């Protein structure tokens, strides 16, 4: 397991927006919201390749994602918002009413190429 911590940034994509309306039970929506984009150097450091599964953990929960290289800054991972990212968010709003949805520190553990399902504990 990589001891290094990464910054998780949930985000939106046009495709995700379409599939929110098509159906959140659809395979495509599930695939979109369980795919994390990560810098190629970070992937090597964690020990995963394109298409490999990884377990992402925060202090509040964990979820499984499929890794995908992308042109993103090193040290940061990006995932479209969805039920898996909800599992990683804490409930404190710092008195604002707005949960912190971006900038969580996470640990990433490689899981290989297993076709495992998202953990919803």
């Amino acid at each position, binding site marked *: 397991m990589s001891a290094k911590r990464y910054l998780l940034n949930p985000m939106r994509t046009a495709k995700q927006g379409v599939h929110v309306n098509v159906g959140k039970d659809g395979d495509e929506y599930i695939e979109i919201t369980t795919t994390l984009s990560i810098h190629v150097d970070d992937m090597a450091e964690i020990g995963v390749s394109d298409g490999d599964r990884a377990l992402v953990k925060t202090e509040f929960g964990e979820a499984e994602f499929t890794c995908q290289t992308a042109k993103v800054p090193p040290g940061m991972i990006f995932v479209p918002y969805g039920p898996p990212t909800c599992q990683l968010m804490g*409930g404190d709003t710092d008195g604002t009413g707005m949960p912190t*949805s971006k900038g969580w520190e996470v640990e990433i553990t490689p899981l290989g190429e297993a076709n495992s399902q998202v953990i919803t504990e």
Partner: protein
Amino acid sequence: MTCTLGEVKNRADFIVYWGGNPAECHPRHFTKYTLMQKSRFLPRGRKDRTMVLVDIRETKSVKAADVFLQVRPGKDFELITILRAMIKDQPISDAQLAETGLTREQLQDFVTRMKAAKFGVFFFGMGLSMTRGKHMNSAALLTLAAELNAFTKFVAMPMRGHGNVTGADVIMRWQTGYPFGISFNRGYPRYNPGEFSTVDVLVRGDTDCNFIIGADPGATMPKPAIEHLASVPTIVLDPHVTHTSKLARVHITTAPAGISAPGTAYRMDEIPMPLRPALESPYPSDEEVVRRIKETILKKPDWMGERPQMLTSQVG
């Protein structure tokens, strides 16, 4: 200190997107309002406008931008504060600049362009409002926009999310005076974000029943809030089966608003848009279901004894 998107379309020659990715999240924004439209004051359309994008990564919106400023994550507040100082020719140290990940030349160019604009707009997204600093980041940007009015016309507008979140804010505002985070439990509206806001109420486990209309918090809210939704009776009105409806005790299927039910949606600049239904639906509208529930509740004996709810019953 804001304006309508019509004014942006007709007058804005300097567009700044901050912490937002309109190419993916608001795909008609460029073409309908901010960049491509030709107008009386901007007859050459895109050629008469300048777009700056501020974000922590290169999104698809970068291709549309004239200038891209890649700020370090969580340093938006610092960057805005530096810009506020620079427009007033206050000194900035190299160490302060280094924190933002941007150079003095980049920021000086940004400031010069802002001051030279005839009509500038900040559109800010969740990259600003949902990261460290939250409302303080938004407040700082609004202050920067206000201060730029010493030099030229400048406004700011949030890039609102999907659905009709602007409508919810507007309706709550004209009915109660507050946009969200409102408690009616004393018989009159009280406003306190962090205490009465939905996420906080759910995470603390204050509710013993939840009534959710046209939203899917089961797929969007933090895990502790979702766990509470599942632990008490939750009633959902929604046209579709959602993550929330699956954990609810009751799901009433309703007609999709704007498609099979009439209503009013509010654009992100708070302009109301009446919607006529295009298709028929066998299901009732949200409004009809809520009205019928209310009528049924009113027929029940008043367990509180007197109306409105008595203060003594709540705090005595």
